[in-house]
């Protein structure tokens, strides 16, 4: 699992590459949770190369979403696969995130 974080135009983009299973979530959690500090702006989660996500991965997503809600920023989820989309649907995440 790899995370690439880039910044520009007042936006933070986290590119998630690989499988976000429980061990991977634990691994990237500190890095991702740190992004909450920038939740007043726009956080883009680029899922174009994300193959899999478990509930611990979803937990990272919603943590950022809650931070954005508190700070008036927004979280955009970009490029989810059909598989991940169905997970989002099952968990009601489609309603929580702006999906691009």
């Amino acid at each position, binding site marked *: 699992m790899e995370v690439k974080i880039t910044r520009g135009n007042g936006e933070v983009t986290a590119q998630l590459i690989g499988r976000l299973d429980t061990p991977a979530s634990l691994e990237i959690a500190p890095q991702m949770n740190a992004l909450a500090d920038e939740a007043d702006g726009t956080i883009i989660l680029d899922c174009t190369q994300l193959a*899999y996500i*478990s*509930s611990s991965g*979803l*937990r990272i997503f*919603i943590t950022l979403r*809650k931070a954005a809600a508190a700070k008036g920023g927004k979280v955009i989820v970009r490029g989810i696969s059909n*598989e991940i989309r*169905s997970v989002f649907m099952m968990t*009601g995440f489609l309603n929580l995130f702006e999906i691009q």
Partner: protein
Amino acid sequence: MKKLRNLKALLLVFVAAVALEATALVQFYFSQNGLREEAKLRAEGQLEATRYEIMDIIDQAEAAVRNSVWIAQWCLDYPDSLQRVCQRIVADNPVVAGSTIALVPGYIKNRPLFSPYVCRDGDGSLKVLSLATEQYDYPSQEWFARPLELGEGYWSEPYVDEGGGEMLMTTYSLPIRDSKGVQAAVITADISLEWLKELMGRMNVYPNAYCTVGSREGHVMVSPPEKQDPKTLVFNTMVDRTGWTISLVIPESDIFGVLRRVGSIVGILQLLGLLIIILMLQSFVRGERRYRELDKQRERISGELQIATGIQMSMVPKTFPPFPERHDLDMAATIVPAKEVGGDLYDFFIRDEKLFFCVGDVSGKGIPAALVMAVTRTTFRNLSAHEDSPGRIVRAMNDSLSAMNESNMFVTFFCGVLDLANGQLRYCNAGHNPPMSLTDSIRPLPVVPNLPLGIMGGFEFQEQEMPFRYDDAIFLYTDGLTEAENSAHEQFGEARMDDALHGRKSAQGHLENIKKRVADFVGDAPQSDDLTILFIHYVPSSRRLVLSNSIDQVSLLPAFVEDAVKASKLEPETADSLNLALEEAVVNVINYAYPEGTVGEVIIDAATTETALTFTITDSGKPFDPTAREEVDINASVEERPVGGLGIHLVRRIMDDVRYERRGEKNVLILTKKY
């Protein structure tokens, strides 16, 4: 038995000999009789002809005398004219050599003895002598006295004429009576018997036959030759009036000579033939015996080889499918020995849910290789009965085989142990050609070559391992497959084998396909090496994954789930979501059933049925029922939503049925996904 056969053969020859000789003897006997009969006919014919010839001369002489009797009677009164009568007899009859008319003494008073004798001189002219001499004293001569005594004609005994040329003579005499009936004189005709000799000499019916002629009194007139055969046949005939006996003597050798010569030649030829038959029979019997012994020997060896093949074949599992009650293994195997018995082997068996299997190739061929094969197989069975590690099995086999390897034979060997519960394959290769692994691709299994068994005791064999997944297969073989040669001495080779392994088939299907391809390739060329194939196809309907209670372990789930899905009737795409459900369930167990610091296992069993795929997650942690957790409200606002609780929610959403049980000291969570 041998003697009896000899006796029979001898008896056969003996009977044949007796029959042959008896036939020859009978033939000989009849031929001899025939020849004797013929000789008799010929001799009698000739004797008869000769007798007629003699009688002719006798008759001529008698007639000459008889015809002159009347004139002699007439001349009695003129004795001097009697001489002329004699002259007429001699002159007119060439057979007559001499003639006389001798007066009975005293018939004429002044002439007490009177006998003029006329005979042929040396030059053929006639000469006249008188027999009326005192020394001769004709009245006492037989030719004179006997006819007078008998009163009729008489042929004298043969005698040698002293006066007239030293010839053998005989005389016919006839008394002459005068007109008063008184015996007055004797008239005679001499005939020489020299012609008789000549006549007898002409009787040459057989080359060594001869004639003798005997007189009435037994004097020999024609004598036999000096040299006489001891065995003769004699035929006689008698000449009338003279009383002579003519004997024709034929030596048996003349009559039967040819027959006896032919007979002995035939006899010798027959004996020679019999001898040849005996020799041939003897050599035939000897050859036959030798052939039978060889045949018996060959039969015995071939029988023993068949038994050996039977024993060898009984050592390898031959019943397929070998484990009909199991559905997780599809196996096929074969050994095709190049000679009756071979040095290849394969073996397999299941112990403690582990499949132990091996393939080996003993150096060399025939019975020695088969013996080593038997030892190898026995050693494998003995060691693997208690040992699970293929590396340690191979090490111990190598030490055992090296220790007793006096014939310097070695065995290339591959040993594998497949854990049927989790698909873990551990293997150890001892110098054998790498098996082919049929997973996503078809390629040789990565192997450390190590060393063949039996070369160096104490060698540290390296064991390797590889996870075996659903539908994976391993194809083990001996070099008899890749080195199978056709008549052009080309080898079947790895490329052809590789090609033959493509395509989805049952194990038996793969085996038949490879065998057929090899057979088609090899054609009529003789098989040069044993060919062994062992095909193991792993298709578990249920599998087990055992995890320790560490979050890292969830990375082992995707492969496990993928295999479980493959074995089921689910679409492959469902694997991801099932994996998610399973991961959530397992993470729950690790997080809640096993509190921080405790050690435990999470066992996952995947089972396919006709209608569903079921995962059963078992742990020995503290009681924990994930289904008891409150449902999360997915429609709540961002602010109201809790961060956690999504895991069990996902499990519920993905699976069709989620059931928790506390079984004894264990938590059991059963997840079912219907097709």
